[in-house]
């Protein structure tokens, strides 16, 4: 999981539960996403990389393309 790239489908930010779609297990699944850097906001449509994975469905992400 860690190191995979994904696309943000729900806004990620402090106090929010974002959503990212990540290609995994031969399909694409949605994960609940939180920012790695506190107070960072990642808008919908951004590409992110998974930094931490908390099973079953929580990931911490950072911007893949600055």
């Amino acid at each position, binding site marked *: 999981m860690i190191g995979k790239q994904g696309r943000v489908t*729900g*806004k990620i930010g402090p106090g929010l*539960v974002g*959503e990212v779609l990540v290609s995994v*297990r031969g399909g694409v699944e949605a994960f*609940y996403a939180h920012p790695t850097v506190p107070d960072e906001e990642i808008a919908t449509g951004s590409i992110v990389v998974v930094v931490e994975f908390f*099973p*079953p*469905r929580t990931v911490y992400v950072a911007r893949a393309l600055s």
Partner: protein
Amino acid sequence: MPTEYLVIGGVVLVALLILIMLFKAFWRVAEPNEALIVSGLGARGKSDTADSLGFKIITGKGTAVLPGFQNARRLRLDSRAANLQVSCVTQQGIPVVVRGVVIYKVGDDLHSIANAARRFLDQQDSMNGAIHELFTGHLRSIIGNLTVEDLILNRERLTGETRASAADEMIKLGLIVDSLQIQEIDDETGYITNLGKPHAARIAAAARIAEAQRDQEATEAEQVAAANKAAAWRDSQIKQAAYQAEIDEAMARSRQAGPLSEASARQEVVVQETRAAELEASLAEQRLQAQVRKPADAKAYETVKLSQAERDARIAQAEAEARETELRAAAQASQVKQAAAAEAESVRLRGEAAAAATRATGLGEAEAAKARGLAAAEAARAQGLAEAEAAKAKGLAEAEAIRARSEALAENQEAVIAQQLAENWPQIVEAGSRAFGNVDHMVVLNGAQGVEEMLAKALTLGGTGLGLVRSLLNGATPAPAPAPMSSAAPVPAPTPVSSADPVPAPASAPGGSGGRERSR
């Protein structure tokens, strides 16, 4: 023997069947949309964590299950839909009834499957109830924080809020939400209806305005069209009248066409008659040519030819006569020649006879003469030698004189010329006096002196000739005959002058005329 084979074959078949049935009883295969949860003896999950699950999760493949020791059950992973109906109050305190649907499924990862299996394995059909309760509670709280406008318009916020509030519970249950849709919002107070009314009124007003404007435009267009139609009708009438006039004119012309065509036909007849008359005149002329002129020409030609033939005949006759005369003369000449030849032959023969006689006598005389001659020859030889000596001496003297003269000529031409002039003086004086030969009467005014002057002038004429001779001698050869040149010398001098003079005059004339043109 065959019975034994049959028995062995039957036993093998039965054993095979038993094996297949055992395999089928042992082996379980998980479909793509389900997970096999195997629990029991030795069912240790291959989890990456140290803690054992206590059961095995199989997805997408088969596994052996020992009947009696192990138990395998299926957990459906496909999506499920739960209908939601929530009566709640919005942020503005407006009671609404919201109907929606949530589409969810068991998560595909092992953790989600484990969570879901622990919670829902025996009550998979009651999952919808639990989800309904869960989502109605969350929706109630979410909608309490939203306005009706947000609910209708800001779908992103609704889903975001739902995710934020339901995420933890869904993780605990091992479920994931694929979609949450608000299908219907029932508004008892008519808020939503009233919310749309200003807009509806505005739209209605705009529609009426637009309708009125379009009506006005349509009316204007209709009036314009009517005016255009009237104008078109008027134009059409005018054109029709014009065409009618043309038709009338054409009809009148057609009525006049009969007489007109008659007149033109008559005119055509007259033209044809005229042409016929012309042809007749031409025929008469041709006939005249053929009958009168051509015979006359032929007669003239005949006459000319006859006279020419006659003339040629006469010429031929004359030529024949001349030839005859010529031939006759030739014949006579030949006759005379033959006679002369005969005569000559006889003369020769006579001569030869005489010669023979003479020779006979001559031989005798010759002997005598020879004796005499020898004596005479001796005497003559002596005399000849003496003469030759004398001639040689004389020739040497002359050669010496010539050489001396040529040297003198080379050294002093004038002296030689003077000598020659002196030698030829009588001829010169004669040539000078020849001028007086043509004079009939000569009146001399000064007496004897005048005659002297005259003679002197005549002699000077000879003198000028002498000068010319000298110049010629200077130029090239020693004078062959200087005296005759003296009279011819003055003549050529004037001619080049007279011929040279006219040449420049024409050359200067064009220049002068050109100058005149330029000045003009």
